[in-house]
């Protein structure tokens, strides 16, 4: 069920009606039932998968909590391996088999299709959540929940299944099972609906519209300025699609009185690539930091490597080399999390290597800045860093645009053949471009304004709540009507991150 579909809107309205009609102590059960219906509507087999994952996490959690350290460690490792195996079999095996079986016989291909069909919905998100639950209990950051259905709700909470954010049980427990209930309906709707509308504005007015140009640019062989425009547009497209989708998800959850964590914090205002990824898909970044990066740092082989390096270089430098290496590994894993295509691995390596390089060169940068008398705090330098980060990120989108790393690299090099530029591929009709580009520009300026306000610490809600009633009606009517007027585009509707 696509969250932009009409059926989802009906489902949401019916769900909210029931949710606020029943006594508040039954509300979490209502959410569980709604989540099950949501999953069943997509494919009943999703229920099998989600209950398996919930059962593994539940059993492992209880066992780990009651067992001594050694046994707990074994159980945690076994549970995590099992969960990763489920991910590998359900998500990566069909993709990998599809790749290798493409030239094999029809029977095998049909089986591969079957495997692809049973790829559970939202698996990439809820499996990471299950892993975080098991490891948090093992590391004693959280306690195991004795109620299986509590955990089943955490794993299957339907807004999150569509595209995250990847949440922790410690964050959501308090939200799901509030003793005082989930507040009044009108207050929750007032908080949630504007967020949904804002999300749809980003998705339907900006992402879907600019996506028409992006798709043209990403297909075939573009050169010079056409590649530059494609990459610029792709960055806007992806940001508005993903952050818009997350806003919709958060808004839906707010309607039920449940606050989800923010997954974006104005990433395009970042001063370096590391900061960019701490502001973009925050929940995935935080997961990787807590459950991959830190455990890797404490892993024996890395400790040994650090010791070995210390013999050849300073202790500080050895630490940096290890950190750089871990960054490359973490970004490679993030890339592979998106899919098995070589473009994902390429994207991970591109980002990992740049961050690793900046870690290694940190001291040299400081020396250069001192010798060139650059004031680290000056506006000019900060703006330079902002533009530099923007360019690095934008170039990196080349991997997202194409279906393989080699195609992406070829596209990158074609960017320098300016004399071969042909913009008619992206803008085949002048009237279309002349009509939609100004609309896109206005929409992007509105987005920029809101993001600047956020950057200044002015919350989204504070921006409109203080305004008179009719001004608020005007603002939200304009946003809603913009979605209806510009929301119909060929090939639009689905969210990019719903595919991962």
């Amino acid at each position, binding site marked *: 069920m696509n969250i932009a579909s009409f059926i989802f809107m009906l489902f949401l309205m019916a769900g909210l009606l029931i949710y606020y009609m029943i006594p508040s102590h039954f509300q979490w059960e209502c959410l569980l039932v709604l989540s099950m219906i949501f999953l069943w509507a997509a494919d009943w087999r999703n229920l099998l998968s989600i209950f398996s994952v919930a059962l593994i996490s539940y059993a492992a959690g209880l066992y780990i909590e009651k067992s001594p350290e050694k046994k707990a460690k074994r159980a945690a490792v076994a549970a995590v391996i099992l969960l990763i195996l489920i991910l590998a079999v359900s998500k990566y095996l069909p993709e990998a088999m599809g790749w290798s079986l493409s030239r094999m016989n029809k029977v095998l291909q049909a089986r591969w299709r079957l495997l692809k069909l049973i790829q559970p919905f939202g698996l990439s998100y809820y499996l990471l959540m299950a892993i975080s639950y098991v490891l948090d209990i093992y590391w004693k950051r959280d306690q195991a929940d004795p109620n299986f259905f509590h955990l089943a709700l955490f794993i299957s909470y339907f807004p999150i299944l569509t595209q995250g954010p990847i949440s922790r049980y410690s964050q959501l427990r308090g939200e799901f099972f509030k003793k005082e209930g989930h507040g009044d309906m009108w207050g929750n709707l007032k908080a949630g609906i504007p967020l949904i509308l804002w999300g749809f504005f980003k998705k*339907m007015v900006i992402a879907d519209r600019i996506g028409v140009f992006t798709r043209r640019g990403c297909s075939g062989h573009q050169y010079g300025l056409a590649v530059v425009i494609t990459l610029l547009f792709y960055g806007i497209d992806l940001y508005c699609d993903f952050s818009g989708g997350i806003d919709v998800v958060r808004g839906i959850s707010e309607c039920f009185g449940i606050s989800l964590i923010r997954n974006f914090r104005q990433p395009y205002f970042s001063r370096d690539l590391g900061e960019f990824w701490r502001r973009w898909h925050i929940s995935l970044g935080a997961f990787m930091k807590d459950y991959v990066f830190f455990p890797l740092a404490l892993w024996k082989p890395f400790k040994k490597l650090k010791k070995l390096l210390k013999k050849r270089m300073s202790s500080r430098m050895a630490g940096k080399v290890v950190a750089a290496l871990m960054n490359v590994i973490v970004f490679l894993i993030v890339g592979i999390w998106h899919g098995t295509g070589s473009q994902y691995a390429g994207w991970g390596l591109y980002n990992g290597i740049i961050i690793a390089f900046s870690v290694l060169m940190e001291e040299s940068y400081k020396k250069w800045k001192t010798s060139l008398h650059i004031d680290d705090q000056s506006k000019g330098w900060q703006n330079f860093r902002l533009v530099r980060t923007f360019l690095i990120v934008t170039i990196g989108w080349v991997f997202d645009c194409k279906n393989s790393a080699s195609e992406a690299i070829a596209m990158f090099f074609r960017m320098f053949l300016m004399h071969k530029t042909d913009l008619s591929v992206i803008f085949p009709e002048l009237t279309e471009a002349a009509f939609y580009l100004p609309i896109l520009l206005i929409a992007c300026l509105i987005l920029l304004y809101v993001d600047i306000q956020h950057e200044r610490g002015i919350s989204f809600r504070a921006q409109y709540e203080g305004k008179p009633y009719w001004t608020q009606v005007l603002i939200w009517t304009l946003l809603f009507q913009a979605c*209806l007027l510009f929301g119909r585009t060929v090939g*639009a509707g689905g969210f990019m991150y719903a595919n991962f």
Partner: protein
Amino acid sequence: MRISEKKKKKRWAPESRPGKTACFVLVNLAVMFLSAFLLKQPSILKTELAQVQGPVNFDTIVVGDSHGETAVNPDILDGKLGTVSYNCSRRIMPVKDIYYLMREVCYHNKPKTILYEIDPFYWTTPGISLGNDTSIFFAGSDMKNKTDYFMNEMLEQPFANVIADYRFAPRNVVQIPGTAYVKLQPAYRHHEEASIPMIMKALYMGENYEYKGRGFRYGITYSPGLNRSFRPSQFSEKKVAKSNKVYFHKMAEFCRKKGIRLVCFYSALPPYRLQHENSNAAGHFFAKLCKKENVEYYNMNYLKPDLLPRTDYDYVDLDGHMLGELADRQTAVLADILKSDDPESMFVDSYDEVLKALPKFQGLPGWDPEPWETESSTENVSAETESES
């Protein structure tokens, strides 16, 4: 004091939360109503549905998209076959919608034959929802069909497409005066066939086409201007949406159950398209599909050259919308096929023969294909069955 009190009175606002919500909803409904009135193109389908829902029983029905609308003349068909036919083909009609339209038409008529003009474009282009006309739901009268359409089509659509069947596009904006004018006419409001030429004029189709009745749009002028955005495209079986195959199966099943002869045909394309696209791949795919569904299928591109000679000038545009004269000739040949005992004898065997017989492309006034690269062919029919020249 008095001034501020007056100001406060002027800025009336609802105080209760339900009241505030209701006001917001009402304002938006009003804007949506106005937008729909101004931006939603007047529906030819709605008017045509009213015709087929009338007392006349049509025993031959043509369904399909714009190519079908401009390619089959019911008068010629009836003259040759002695039938009473209606061309229900409408532009930008997804396969799914054709199925529901077919059901709606059969609810009011007892057709013996349904002719389905297949345009591969609508089978391979995802998200054809820009122009889909919800008239099947709103102007239909078969409650079961309406319910199925709502459950299987409208529920799956993005919510914006369902609640607001309009969009703010350059074409729609330019058409606002014409759209508003037509919608205010009694003929349109009463679903009279006389409103169709008005609609065509409002949608700027009147320059190139003339409405000849019973759903047939007769091409009158070759229009190079329409070719500006035309690009040759390549058919790929991989791009065919699974749902289209499912709905085609439903069509075949429906006709079998009702004892209706379902005949699929692929209209003759302009020679340029045949020379620059892999139409053989599309033709081969539909031949396979129809064979699987046990449905008659005729690819008019494979007709023996003397049966339907044509050049690119016999079309309104390179996309393949026929001029009326060619449509009349194709309809006559189609009628001959339908009554023939050996229709296969009217076709050539291979695509090579098709291409050999075509006039070489000499260029068209007002249209220059040179700067455009065609998309690379992603799928061709295997060399064993047919070969591309």
